[in-house]
């Protein structure tokens, strides 16, 4: 017996929690690396500005970490509360990476605490900088382990089912499933990319506000260079992910690309609107999908016609795919233009409109992250474990899920507003000009 409304509300609540959590989680994975790079550049060049950059980023970072930690705890517990049957199975096969994630998290928490409270305590900045290595590693490793759990849901393996019972369980085989390499890599680099663009947004916004300080210019230049590297890597690994899907999860790729019939020389559908089962206003790139899926313009790509109708993901994920890809392209070009422009002294890169383009990068990259996760997760429907357990089989049977959804929505609104208010207040009162002046005062 399945309680249908509980299934629906469980999905909505999980989606709400994750949508809110990944904003803070992505920042939490990427920003430690940015702080480390800034501190390292500052230490290498003996440039106080970069050290200060690291320090100010860290201060804001603590607020986002707090929200990330508490919403992460929420999703961790909600997995068992909303999907008890799934977790019972996951506990038997995939508990290892979940468990390892807590160690990575522990490790990060300890060293972040130490890093925060030892500014100026050590005789050299180098010792202090070394503390950031475990923070950055811990942050990235927890993303690695939790993404492994998610990739298992897309490509379950490492066990046999005999008469409905799981036997012959191999935890490591379950961890190193075929979805894991592309997923983990894509999550990591896109988190670094997003963090770079969010910090660049802040720097560009400060410059727009009239603070013409060299500090913001240095920050922007550094972040734009990092932006090129990470958005290129994100796009490259995104392409590998497409090839993975073609091989192992063709129905997700077919639904995302509106590829209805299995054909060779498959065209790629860009944009377009689905209207009564007909695609309108699309731009098709000949051979595009075959190239995307198999690096061969003539290769055959499996279409939706090969799957029973009740195993096809919702077709709206095509829009999510478009959003993600277009933002990704845009955010590769913007920093490229900026860095080349800087080298060749093009004047427009310092114009107001171009700064606004850079400011848009932060929010856009968050939108791309959200769209990408929705695409990945909705594209896995109707399965919670692809090919093995349908979503409704994993859900709780409790009747109070809708009420809990309401409570959690209120919580996320409170946390979202609270964190923005606190962050604004933190930096409004203590501008960079003021902080530099104060620190000079200390040195005198």
């Amino acid at each position, binding site marked *: 017996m399945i309680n249908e409304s509980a299934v629906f509300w469980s999905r909505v609540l999980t989606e709400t929690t994750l949508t809110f959590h990944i904003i803070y989680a992505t920042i939490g994975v990427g920003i430690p690396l940015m702080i480390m790079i800034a501190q390292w550049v500052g230490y290498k060049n003996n440039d106080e500005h970069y050290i200060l950059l690291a320090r100010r980023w860290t201060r804001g970072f603590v607020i986002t970490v707090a*929200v990330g930690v508490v919403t992460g705890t929420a999703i961790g517990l909600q997995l068992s509360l909303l999907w008890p049957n799934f977790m019972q199975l996951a506990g038997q096969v995939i508990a*290892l990476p979940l468990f390892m994630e807590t160690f990575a998290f522990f490790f990060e928490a300890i060293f972040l*605490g*130490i890093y925060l409270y030892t500014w100026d305590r050590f005789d050299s900045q180098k010792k202090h900088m070394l503390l950031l290595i475990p923070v950055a590693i811990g942050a990235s490793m927890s993303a690695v382990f939790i993404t492994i759990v998610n990739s298992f849901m897309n490509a379950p393996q490492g066990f046999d089912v005999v008469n409905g019972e799981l036997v012959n369980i191999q935890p490591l085989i379950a961890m190193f499933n075929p979805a894991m390499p592309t997923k983990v890599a894509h999550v990591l680099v896109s988190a670094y990319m997003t963090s770079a663009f969010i910090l660049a947004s802040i720097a560009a916004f400060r410059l727009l506000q009239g603070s013409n300080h060299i500090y913001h210019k240095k920050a922007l230049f550094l972040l734009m260079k990092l932006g090129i590297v990470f958005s290129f890597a994100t796009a490259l690994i995104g392409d590998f992910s497409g090839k993975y899907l073609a091989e192992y999860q063709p129905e997700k790729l077919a639904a995302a690309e509106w590829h209805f019939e299995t054909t060779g020389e498959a065209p790629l559908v860009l944009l377009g609107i689905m209207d009564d089962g007909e695609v309108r206003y699309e731009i098709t790139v000949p051979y595009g999908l075959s190239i995307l899926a198999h690096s061969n313009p003539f290769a055959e790509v499996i279409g939706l016609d090969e799957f029973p109708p009740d195993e096809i993901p919702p077709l709206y994920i095509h829009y999510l795919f478009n959003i993600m890809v277009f933002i990704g392209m845009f955010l590769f070009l913007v920093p490229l233009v900026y860095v080349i422009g800087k080298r060749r002294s093009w004047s427009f890169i310092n114009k107001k409109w171009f700064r606004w383009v850079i400011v848009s990068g932060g929010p856009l990259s968050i939108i791309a992250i959200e769209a990408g996760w929705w695409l990945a997760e909705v594209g896995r429907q109707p399965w919670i474990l692809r090919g093995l357990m349908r979503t409704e089989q994993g859900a709780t049977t409790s009747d109070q899920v809708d009420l809990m959804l309401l409570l959690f929505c209120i919580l996320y609104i*409170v946390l979202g507003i609270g964190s923005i208010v606190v962050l604004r207040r*933190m930096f409004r009162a203590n501008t960079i000009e003021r902080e530099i002046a104060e620190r000079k005062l200390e040195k005198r």
Partner: protein
Amino acid sequence: MNLEVLGVTVLWTFLFGYVIVASIDFGAGFFNAYTLLTNRSHILSDIIKRYLSPVWEVTNVFLVFFFVGIVGFFPLTAFYYGTILLVPVSISIILLAVRGSYYAFESYGAAGHKGYALAYGLSGLLIPASLSVVLTISEGGFVDIVDGRPVLDFWALYTSPLSWSIVLLSIAAVLYISAVFLTWYAWKANDPQASDLMRKYSLIWALPLIITAIGIIVEMRDHNAVHFNSIVSLWPLFLLSGLLFLVTVWFLWKKRNYGLAVILLIFQFAFAFFAYGISHYPYLLYPHLTIHQGFTNTEMAIALVIAFILGLCLLLPSLYLLFRLFLFNKKYVTGERNDHV
């Protein structure tokens, strides 16, 4: 020792770690808010801040460790407890979220914000109350199996004197543990005023603690005779715990050996906590689920134990470093160093 017992012992130890560090944390938040209301915050808040700031995030991980570990070692708990605990645990999560983030908001963002401090102090007191519901449920009598699925009887749970005694015990324990620890910490920070205030709170909360603890054992006789008998059979451990409690209170009364008092306090709770845990054996949820039924497959158990040992190799030195730099660093504790970001 077989793997089931090893697994449950590891988890129980981490839960004990959480109970101690979280009690200090929750109680500190409450005392901070209380002294703010009674205009005595100048005495305490610096001491509390200095202790909590570097460790608040670590405290949270102990809990995460426990609930991730239990699903790993005992996947059936996800089915039983996951299904019945939706409402009580969701409330705990919300309180934990408000508390954790408002702590950060107050101490890094808007220092001295009264509303944030109050939200964080009060939620801290409600969290142990809401989490302790899990302990009550594990005693049995509140869960029926309908169509092969567990269903929680809310009415029975909220009208049971046992639930409310456990709630009271958890609150009293939180305030007592926290007060004793902060008495020592303030004394170590050369702050006799704060130390005296905390000593007063410790002595105030010692009485309700012992009354509720004894009361629960009495109530258990009617509620769950099997469990009561195994508690009685472990009487030497509970007696030892009681004696340690008396010595701790004696030291506090006489205003001496605060450091030793903290150590005795930890042992007092360790004896009671582990004796309670042993008396619960072999049930995870009386009478539906035992640790033998719920245990994961051997391959996963071995993998988890290996991961656990490797994890500890990383964790213990890091925790040692944390303690050396803050808790046992004279200059930091006395506030001589203030290296905040």
